[in-house]
């Protein structure tokens, strides 16, 4: 059987050869535009280059700024209502609610303590070390030490 391509012009001058060879999938040209746009938009974000100093610190600056605004607002309200003066007077007076602290057990009251009262009657006044000494040793021993030792020596003893 004779070959079908017997009469084909194989020369490059054949104009049919200049036509595109192959095909593209259905709807390719229509979808290409959207695909290219998607690629462009997805590549544009990271293509902005390294972040500037402002971009890196922006969130921190805004956080600090909002904190300052809140503080400033609070300060302004206190200043307008006069609450700040009251706060200052309380803070400046140094007057703690001692009874509450004694009740909570943070400090021990010497008021009504018979040992303390007796010693106070005799000596007139006590310093911190002597009061502490009374809490550590019994009354007679403490009394004797107080009469014989000076303040520094009592402190050394307590330290040891």
């Amino acid at each position: 059987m004779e070959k079908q391509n017997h009469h084909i012009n194989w020369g490059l001058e054949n104009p049919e050869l200049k036509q595109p060879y192959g095909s593209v999938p259905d709807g390719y040209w229509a979808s290409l535009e959207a695909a290219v746009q998607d690629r462009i938009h997805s590549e544009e974000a990271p293509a902005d280059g390294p972040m500037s100093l402002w971009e890196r610190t922006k969130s921190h600056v805004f956080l600090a700024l909002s904190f300052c605004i809140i503080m400033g607002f609070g300060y302004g309200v206190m200043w307008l209502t006069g609450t700040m003066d009251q706060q200052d007077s309380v803070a400046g007076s140094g007057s703690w609610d001692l009874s509450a602290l004694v009740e909570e057990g943070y400090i021990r009251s010497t008021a009504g303590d018979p040992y303390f009262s007796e010693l106070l009657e005799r000596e007139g006044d006590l310093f911190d070390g002597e009061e502490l000494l009374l809490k550590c040793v019994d009354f007679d021993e403490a009394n004797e030490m107080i009469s014989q030792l000076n303040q520094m020596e009592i402190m050394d003893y307590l330290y040891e």
Partner: protein
Amino acid sequence: MTDREFLDLWQEEDRRNYAFNLLLRQYTQQLYWHIRKMVGDHDVANDLLQNIWVKVWKNLDGFRGESKLVTWLYTIATHETLSYLRKERLRSLLRFAAPEAASHLEASEDLDGERLKRKLQKAILTLPPKQRTVFVLRYFEEMKYEEISVITGTSEGALKASYHHAYKKIEQILKSMD
């Protein structure tokens, strides 16, 4: 749309997308077939074409109109395709295998014209990348050597010689297939 009309439209910030889409519609098929003839495969041609349009978008601000817009587009397309072919060649060398481009070609045509075109495409893929570029631009696009010289950055004399060699090779391959 002329180059000037396009560039004027592109300069308007809010009409850039519109201008770009016009450009894409005008030249994308031309560029696609140029790439497809160089690589032989649709998927590769599609990837390259998309890369090329992204590059065009990114670099359009730098286009000064020193050459025709279409020449500039072909320059980007050709360089991108040559770069792919070089990498592909290197990959096949490392695998100790021949480039696979020709194997992508469809082989199911019954028509003589299609068979002929397939044989030509196979023959083109046997050419070295630079010769292939010159052959495709001159034979199919019928570009002047002057224009091909701008696209490839090669002298007109060298291009003429290159095309002559490519033409002879292709002719021989086609005759041997007869």
